[in-house]
């Protein structure tokens, strides 16, 4: 009995020494700190920028309706580009209230050209309240893109485009209102909840699950929906449909997440570095192709697809595995009505 007890004591002592040595040497993972920094440095600023740029968009389009001109149309289009870039940067971190509210349906559900044309041609009111009751594909940034850049958009610079302009103003006002709500909810406690602070805090596990699942959904949409060699052109006829700026902005946000002090801090260093490097390579591949999306089935398109797909695989496998995340849900829950 004494031998067993002795062995037990030696084992406990060895375990304690091992822990002490390791504790002194550091090297542990602080997931809560990683989540806190991610929320404060990426999630909150991304939503603030989205709220600011969409508010500017709404103002510029409203001004365009009040005083139609080429110059004001240009300003409205520039504001749209800024807002679209902000939304793209926010999309990989559309967690917390954005997820709870299924904000994708309000912000940038893919435009449904038929519904947009129908509303333009009809005599239904195009006030914000009326547009809010239409299907998601007839409002949001994607529909606004169609209105500002699509066929017939030049009429916006003249009085002839009055209905189209009011429709665009209403759609952008709704987007701005939703973005503003997200920013306010984050400021009023949702950010603390996500970051694990306060009385109704999420666990770091829960927050990391949301963050990684959102990235994966974003990457799936990007890779399969936009960059796949056989993917057709998106509706919109504007810079988002033809360009790579939004893709670049999405990936840039993801790369920022894998900084050592942010979500990357919850990963072992080699995994963090390799995931981040793969995402940065994808960003570089997008940079190398200018702002134009290479045509379907072209070798350039295939290269672009492969580079971004590698980033997706790195997140879906290496990051998911190291963070012990369960990929469960899809954000494909908006109103497609």
């Amino acid at each position, binding site marked *: 009995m004494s031998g067993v007890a002795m062995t037990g004591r030696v084992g406990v002592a060895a375990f304690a020494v091992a*822990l002490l040595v390791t504790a002194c040497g550091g090297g542990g993972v602080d997931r809560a700190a990683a989540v806190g920094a991610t929320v404060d440095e990426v999630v909150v600023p991304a939503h603030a920028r989205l709220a600011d740029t969409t508010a500017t968009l709404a103002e510029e389009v409203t001004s365009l309706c009040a005083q139609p001109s080429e110059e004001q149309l240009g300003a409205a289009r520039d504001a749209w580009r800024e807002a679209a870039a902000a939304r793209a940067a926010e999309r990989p971190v559309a967690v917390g209230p954005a997820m709870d509210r299924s904000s994708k349906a309000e912000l940038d559900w893919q435009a449904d050209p038929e519904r947009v044309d129908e509303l333009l041609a009809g005599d239904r009111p195009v006030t914000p309240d009326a547009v809010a009751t239409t299907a998601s594909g007839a409002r949001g940034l994607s529909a606004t893109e169609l209105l500002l850049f699509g066929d017939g958009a030049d009429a916006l610079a003249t009085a002839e485009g009055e209905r189209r302009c009011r429709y665009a103003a209403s759609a952008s006002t709704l987007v701005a209102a939703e973005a503003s709500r997200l920013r306010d909810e984050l400021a009023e406690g949702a950010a603390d909840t996500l970051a694990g602070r306060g009385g109704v805090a999420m666990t770091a596990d829960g927050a990391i699950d949301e963050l990684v699942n959102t990235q994966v959904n974003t990457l799936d949409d990007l890779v399969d929906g936009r960059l*796949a060699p056989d993917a057709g052109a998106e509706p919109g006829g504007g810079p988002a449909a033809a360009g790579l700026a939004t893709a670049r902005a999405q990936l840039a946000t993801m790369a920022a997440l894998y900084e050592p002090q942010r979500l990357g801090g919850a990963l072992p260093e080699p995994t963090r570095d390799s995931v981040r490097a793969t995402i940065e390579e994808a960003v570089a591949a997008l940079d190398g192709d200018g702002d134009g999306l290479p045509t379907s089935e072209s070798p350039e398109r295939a290269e672009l697809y492969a580079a971004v797909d590698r980033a997706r695989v790195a997140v879906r496998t290496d990051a998911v595995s190291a963070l012990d995340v369960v990929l469960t849900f899809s954000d494909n829950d908006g109103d497609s009505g």
Partner: protein
Amino acid sequence: MIGRPPRAPDAAGAPAVRLQVAAGRLVPGESLAVVRIVVGAVAVLSAARLLARGWVAQLWSEPALLLGWPQVGVPVLPNAGLVAVVVVVGLAGVAVAVGLAPRTAAGIFLLAFGYLELLDRTTYLNHYWALTLLAALLVVLPTDGTWSLAARRRAGVPAWAVWLVRTQVAIVYVGAAIAKLDPDWLLRGQPLGMWLAARSDLAVVGPLIGLPAVGLVASWAGLAFDLTIVGWVWWRRTRILALVAALAFHGVTWALFPRIGVFPLLMVGLITVWMPPDWPSALRRRLRRNVGGAPVPAGPVRAGLVSPVHVRRRVPILAVLWIVAGLALPLRHLAIGGDVRWTEEGGRFAWRVMAEEKVGWATLAVTDPATGVTDRVALTDVLTDNQAHVAATSPDLLYQVAGELADRRAATAGTRPEVRVDARVSWNGRPNAPLVDPDVDLAAEPWRRGRHQPWILEPPP
């Protein structure tokens, strides 16, 4: 099973006969009754979870493609039928637990549960397999003599029955230990280190378990536990400590890794079979004594009032076959070749409990040979998330998906396409690596039964 009286004393000196007599000796049936109750309770719990969480539809009705066992075609019932089967599982579990025709109930459970298990290989879990094996034993073992509605009077069980269940439980534990005898577990402390680090936000213990050395220490501790726990529970001097350790171990694993489901509950119940066959009565007597109550008399079996019985000749043969099969099945990967940790060949029915962390992602390139046009299909386009999670890291399931996809396209388009799979897997924290040869048309590959599939690529270093 309890048959003729023992042979004449002059033959009792031979070792084989002594063993036969010892195996046939009646012992109290309480420890086996506990096993019966635990198996029944876990069956009920499993059925309740399946129903309460809507898993019946999620696992078997909603998937567009079920990855059943290729050699065992079972019809897929409509959802109502599947729910009925799960209800049967639960009711049979109740009957097993309370001892209402427990052998028949165990047989019904075995059929119903086995049917569900055969529907889709992605639902395979080691504890389901353990439950299946124990249910099979309950069909043949006389566990209905104790704490059973079927028992007219308390009856003992032959010692061989207790030892057969003990051996089965030991195979699970030791098999789980053997599965962990690899450099990742022993030298890198993986995957446990990753899993513990992922729980570093837990209160109190969080900062501690996130430390890298804890993963390594915990890996060795877990291995030592699996390898030796049955011995510690068996040995009287260490029994109490070992039981506390078992409770703590399974409690901690359940708290840290809730996804392992009812496995800890099952094992905590089963490990008790390594205690003396009358342990519940002994515990009750001790408790009574400690609180000053009236002593509980030892039952007739405990008092040795029953005769030793002879064991029928076929019993030891069947028991040995059962044990040999139980030992051989987890080790069959050695005959197949390749690294089972990566290839998964011989990985099922092998007690590889939490031995690896693998996360994969696969896309299938479906090419029409006539036109050369290739469609890319994500695994999640044809499987549910749960199925895809398992299939992406299992070459045999990827092979099956490729074949099914080709068959379906051939049925609709008239031409059987080529299907190549680009599967990348992150294994125990390594950067993702290709699992199968992306240049091989898996839809045209023959399945080499019992042999290593050459299109599975080498594991990353």
